[in-house]
């Protein structure tokens, strides 16, 4: 463990010597901006292994991500850009780079604009910025609502947005809206395909249509923002599966289509001076199957607070609450029992977190974070805990130490 921490510190010290500057260059007489980021984490846990890493024992530093983007204004109203993102988080990502976003944005007026291409989905306070470690106080956002192992589920869509800001009046504040439709295409290196592998299902594709909207109100009370989001998704997963009647035989084709997948999210944020308080509630519902199938009903919320003590140091804490109810229906219900008792550790994760963030300079931060988790919430949908790295079975409680450092320019 100490060797890994020392390696992390060495990385930090080396990184601190690098002068980071955004790179601009000219292309066809237009300014092109280049920005990027990289982060490296180390996680040590007691209890269960976490986030598909072997975090118990010596801990794990298999926690790296990076992104690089280029953007330019083509005209006063038209902007184009793209970002590539890559990560390795235990068994997730595995350094398979993804096109994170790539779109053209035309803003007719402050109250109306359109975007087309691959666009980050606006959902709640942080869905579209969840990978941008340097923007957040916490090393890990509340996992009940922003599970890093399931980032693909809500992250982006290939399609279009309409958006705008409508100023109501001096006394009523501003409304910002985004509405979108497009195709979601999950990486097979995300958490859900990994969980299915433990059940003998090997996904090749997962995705489908998604459409939704977000409405947020910057209230006249300075620093107070409230909002709500909704997504509907129509998802199909295909791949191969073990023949349950002949487990040693060849794999069979697998396909599953959703009857209903939707997310509702409500959120509020209040900032005053050096204090910021966030709270969000999300309900995520899936129904996969036909005459026989399964529903998952995830209800999650968190409350977080962060306070900047001095310019370079911020401290924060949150409580994150996650419950899941899995109900089977049709013939499968005769052999697989439903899980509806959310007081069981298999159906919840309650996470208490404390964090300190140190900003070494404008480009480099280090975070130290403690998690105290009750439950492991792994029934038919994962929330950080995977059988593959916990073959001995799950323990009820997990404490985690997360050290993370990040650079951006």
């Amino acid at each position, binding site marked *: 463990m100490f060797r890994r921490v020392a390696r992390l510190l060495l990385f930090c010290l080396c990184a601190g010597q690098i002068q980071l500057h*955004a790179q601009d260059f000219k292309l066809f007489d237009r300014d092109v*901006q280049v*920005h990027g*980021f990289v982060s490296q984490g180390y996680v040590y846990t007691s209890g269960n292994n976490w986030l598909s890493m072997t975090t118990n024992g010596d801990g794990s530093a298999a926690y790296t991500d990076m*992104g690089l*983007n280029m*953007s*330019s*204004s083509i005209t*006063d*109203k038209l*902007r184009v*850009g*793209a*970002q590539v993102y890559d990560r390795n988080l235990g068994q997730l990502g595995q350094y398979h780079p993804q096109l994170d*976003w*790539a*779109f053209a*944005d035309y*803003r007719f*007026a*402050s109250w109306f604009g359109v975007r087309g291409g691959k*666009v*980050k989905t606006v959902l709640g306070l942080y869905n*579209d*910025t969840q990978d*941008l470690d*340097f*923007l957040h106080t916490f090393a890990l956002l509340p996992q009940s609502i922003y599970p890093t192992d399931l980032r693909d589920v809500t992250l982006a869509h290939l399609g279009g947005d309409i958006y705008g*800001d409508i*100023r109501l009046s*001096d006394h009523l504040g501003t409304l910002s809206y985004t509405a979108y439709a497009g195709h979601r295409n999950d990486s097979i290196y995300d958490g859900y395909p990994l969980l299915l592998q433990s059940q003998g299902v090997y996904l090749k594709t997962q995705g489908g249509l998604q459409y939704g909207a977000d409405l947020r109100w910057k209230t006249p009370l*300075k620093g107070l923002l409230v909002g709500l989001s909704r997504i509907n998704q129509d998802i199909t997963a295909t791949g191969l599966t073990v023949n349950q009647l002949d487990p040693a035989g060849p794999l069979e084709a697998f396909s599953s289509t959703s009857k209903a997948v939707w997310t509702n999210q409500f959120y509020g944020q209040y*900032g005053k*001076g*050096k204090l910021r308080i966030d709270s969000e509630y999300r309900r995520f519902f899936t129904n996969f199957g036909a005459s026989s199938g399964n529903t998952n009903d995830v209800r999650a919320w968190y409350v977080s607070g962060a306070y*900047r*003590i*001095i*310019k*370079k140091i911020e401290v924060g804490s949150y409580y994150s609450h996650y419950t899941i109810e899995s109900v089977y229906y049709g013939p499968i219900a005769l052999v697989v029992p439903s899980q509806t008792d959310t007081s069981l550790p298999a159906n919840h994760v309650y996470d208490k977190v404390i964090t300190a963030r140190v*900003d*070494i300079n*404008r480009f480099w931060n280090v975070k130290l974070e403690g998690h105290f988790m009750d439950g492991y919430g792994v029934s038919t949908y994962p929330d950080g805990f995977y059988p593959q790295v916990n073959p001995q079975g799950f323990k009820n409680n997990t404490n985690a130490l997360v050290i993370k450092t990040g650079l*951006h320019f």
Partner: protein
Amino acid sequence: MKHIKAFLVVAGWPGLLGQIALGTTLLGASAFAGDVRVIANPSVKADSISARELKSLYLEEKNSLNGTHVEPVIERRGPAHEAFLHDYLGQTDDELQKYYQALVFTGRGLMPKTVSSDAEVVAYVARTRGAIGYVDTGASLEGVKTLAIADSSGGERQLVSRVEPAYPKDLQQRSIGGTVRLKVVIAANGSVEHVDVLGGNPILGESAAAAVQKWKYAAAGSRTTMEISVPFDPKH
């Protein structure tokens, strides 16, 4: 404690302990450090700008002013930067940087041009069509124009005729200047009904109020209350 101090000095944080020690007394202190003047390239077709418009431009919610494409430029640090953040954006530098980074890394905006000093702001604004910036009131303004600021509450009114305030000679000779903030009540017919001095040097405030009392605005449907800033630059 000695070891911690040594580490912090090595890490380039010699003032950190002092900051922590004084943390609670500094927490409530304002970062506001001086007066600021908003400047623009002569191509910008406006002589004044409301605080709301200024904030929208800097937060990239809009990018034009009176039909002119506008490009904001920010200072990396300094008293003018602190004053501008405090007075017009209502954000700390850290919050503003995170705001821009969220735009840049989700593809929803670009990082504004950032320079290191008032002189660089003036030079960039002077040579860049549509550029606007902010500088300390004492900065040289060669090649740029100053935009008057009107913080409106209850609606904006167009200024029709303006009387320049007298600059008391004693103050000008002693290089005493700054920006005076006034609350102005404008009647429906466009005449100025009442002026209150909200901030700034009281002698300059008295002079500004006397001048503003003679200003004439375009007629509107009702009485309007506005907050305006009047700069006094001893070098001009």
